[in-house]
């Protein structure tokens, strides 16, 4: 009787020893003469429990964690089956509260399946979306996506159906589907998890997009900072080709392209420039990529999560997806809890949950045990929110109303040791490092912003320099072509607004000459 073990291959699990855990389990089982099979899965997204090892039992899978390589030795020492009294026993993964309260639509298979097994993918519903899209045909498929209310999950929140329809209605000799997997926002890892945990979901989503708009070629632009994801996804593409899920038979091809360390290439037009082999300079819009995108052709460029959600929408129906959510934010959002947080991970849920519930109840507060002081939502270009704004619902419009943004859904928690003036300085510094250089307010403004923040931190003429920062932010907000320069004011001004005490510093004494 072969006993199946599941050990994640997700980078976050490998980063804390998952490979050694798997190797130790294999060696120990061999030593004891126990027949085991180790399946390397994606992560369930409960990162404080990685490496989370699951064992298949007649009653379903049971989990243990966090398992260190040292623990792995002792895990089999007492022989199998492992009992509930084992110190690392977690029970059924589905019963772990963090996972139990989620609504996993996009992430339904992630952490469960072998990401490189098409059989697993099919067993868990893979392919049904594409099948339905093929039977519906292009225009009814477009209707489904529009009716679902799906909005771009990269951050802009633009209605996906409208974007696709625009491409479908534009004639050209060829069209493209581009997946933006340049997930550069700190506090985000949903794209990475999908690439490593359920790559076929993205492939299916892109194939559906191709069918809907008349594109036969897709590109997936993955950031170079995700080497594991690149490797796993490239293998998934080869496997898909071998089974005619991609290729001539399928009428759709996918090519993987790797970024080269530029955050700005997460901006859609900069990404297209990069794909074209150029500097990642931002383009003016119009023309929209939907009209003139990659190589001047009509292009659907979507975030990975948007595309990977499409199969579910087609398989289960637009109404089913739209039934979740609130206001104009329909469906679910894979929220990423990160930073100084006790229970960090992937929390997919319907729009509407509050920030406080996410940080305090679900996230369990800080990992350090100190009070939460600030939370940055939406990545480096997102606002810092204080506890006073914890009643804000996770919803596109609710966050905008409070001068924030949900972005790609990342939440970074900071405890009370955070220096918000230094955070504001970093926002400017990051903009300066990553600016494509096109717009003067972004290119030069960010550099001057760093210098001015340094003066404020040194206590030099704080009031005057704060006014200067405010003025600079206005210029950057209205004078930048894209969100890099345009939204840097969000973290800066929110830090000043909500944490003014950090910006009033005593002047540093100057050494006597």
């Amino acid at each position, binding site marked *: 009787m072969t006993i199946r073990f599941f050990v994640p291959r997700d980078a976050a699990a490998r980063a804390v020893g998952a490979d050694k855990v798997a190797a130790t389990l294999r060696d120990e089982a061999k030593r004891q003469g126990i027949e085991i099979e180790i399946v390397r899965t994606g992560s369930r997204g409960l990162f404080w429990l990685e490496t989370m090892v699951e064992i298949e039992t007649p009653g379903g899978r049971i989990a243990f964690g966090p398992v260190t390589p040292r623990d792995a030795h002792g895990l089999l020492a007492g022989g199998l089956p492992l009992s509930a009294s084992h110190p690392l026993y977690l029970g059924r993964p589905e019963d772990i509260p963090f996972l139990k309260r989620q609504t996993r639509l996009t992430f339904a298979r992630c952490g469960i399946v072998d990401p490189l097994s098409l059989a697993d993918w099919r067993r868990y519903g893979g392919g049904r979306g594409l099948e339905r899209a093929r039977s519906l045909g292009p225009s009814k498929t477009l209707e489904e996506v529009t009716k679902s209310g799906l909005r771009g999950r990269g951050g802009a929140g633009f209605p996906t159906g409208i974007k696709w329809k625009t491409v479908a209605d534009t004639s050209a000799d060829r069209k493209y589907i581009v997946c933006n997997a340049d997930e550069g926002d700190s506090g985000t890892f949903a794209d990475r998890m999908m690439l490593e945990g359920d790559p076929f979901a993205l492939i299916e989503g892109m194939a559906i997009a191709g069918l809907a708009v008349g594109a036969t070629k897709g590109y997936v632009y993955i950031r170079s900072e995700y080497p*594991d994801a690149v490797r796993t996804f490239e293998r998934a593409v080869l496997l898909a080709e071998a089974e005619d899920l991609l290729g001539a038979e399928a009428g759709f091809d996918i090519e993987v392209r*790797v970024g080269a360390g530029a955050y700005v290439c997460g901006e859609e037009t900069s990404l297209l420039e990069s794909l074209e082999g150029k500097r990642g300079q931002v383009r003016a819009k119009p023309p929209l990529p939907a009209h003139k995108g990659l190589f001047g052709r009509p292009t659907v460029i979507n975030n990975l999560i948007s595309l990977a959600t499409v199969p579910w929408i087609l398989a289960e129906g637009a109404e089913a997806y739209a039934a979740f959510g609130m206001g104009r934010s329909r469906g679910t959002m894979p929220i990423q809890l990160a930073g100084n947080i006790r229970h960090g991970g992937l929390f997919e849920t319907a729009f509407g949950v509050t920030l406080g519930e996410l940080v305090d109840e679900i996230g369990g507060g800080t990992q350090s045990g100190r009070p939460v002081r600030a939370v940055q939502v939406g990545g480096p270009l997102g606002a810092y929110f204080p506890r006073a704004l914890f009643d804000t619902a996770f919803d596109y419009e609710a966050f905008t109303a409070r001068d924030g943004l949900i972005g790609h859904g990342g939440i970074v928690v900071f405890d009370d040791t*955070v220096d918000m003036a230094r955070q504001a300085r970093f926002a400017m510094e990051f903009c300066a490092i990553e600016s494509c250089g096109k717009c003067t307010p972004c290119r030069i403004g960010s550099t001057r912003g760093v210098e001015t923040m340094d003066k404020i931190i040194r206590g030099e003429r704080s009031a005057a320099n704060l006014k200067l920062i405010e003025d600079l932010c206005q210029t950057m907000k209205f004078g930048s072509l894209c969100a890099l320069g345009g939204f840097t004011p969000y973290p800066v001004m929110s830090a000043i607004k909500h944490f003014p005490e950090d910006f009033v510093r005593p002047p540093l004494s100057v050494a006597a000459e």
Partner: protein
Amino acid sequence: MSLRWNEAEATAIVRRHEGREGRLLPILHDLQAAFGYVPEPAIAFLAQALNITRAEVHGVVSFYHDFRHEPAGRHVLKLCRAEACQSMDGEAFARRVLDRFDLDWGGTTSDGRVTVEAIYCLGLCASAPSALLDGEPMARLNADSIDEIAREVSR
């Protein structure tokens, strides 16, 4: 990896990507994988091979943070400096690593053992602070990790 410019090898790399649209970045990635950096002769070579100007090639190489103008050390340690890692004292950790190797950001030890660079987000944000050592992920870094890193790069 040969650290000396080799036109035959570069030609093979360019040929490998024939037929690809917008192939400059894939070519540059492969060149850097082969040589450890983008050697100066590559600029003129690529301009010729792709029928674009040397200025354009130089513009692309200099734009992206990944592309090196000189070889790195035998090991490359990329420490994450982004917000989630900052929230878990990533900056202080990085300082200690740099001090351990007596380096500034981007520097290489005099014996060529290791280069320490900044990176902005590895997607390991719930397991901060994090790093990539020779392309392999490391997370939940602490004081013990510095010893582990020092051991790894001394191999």
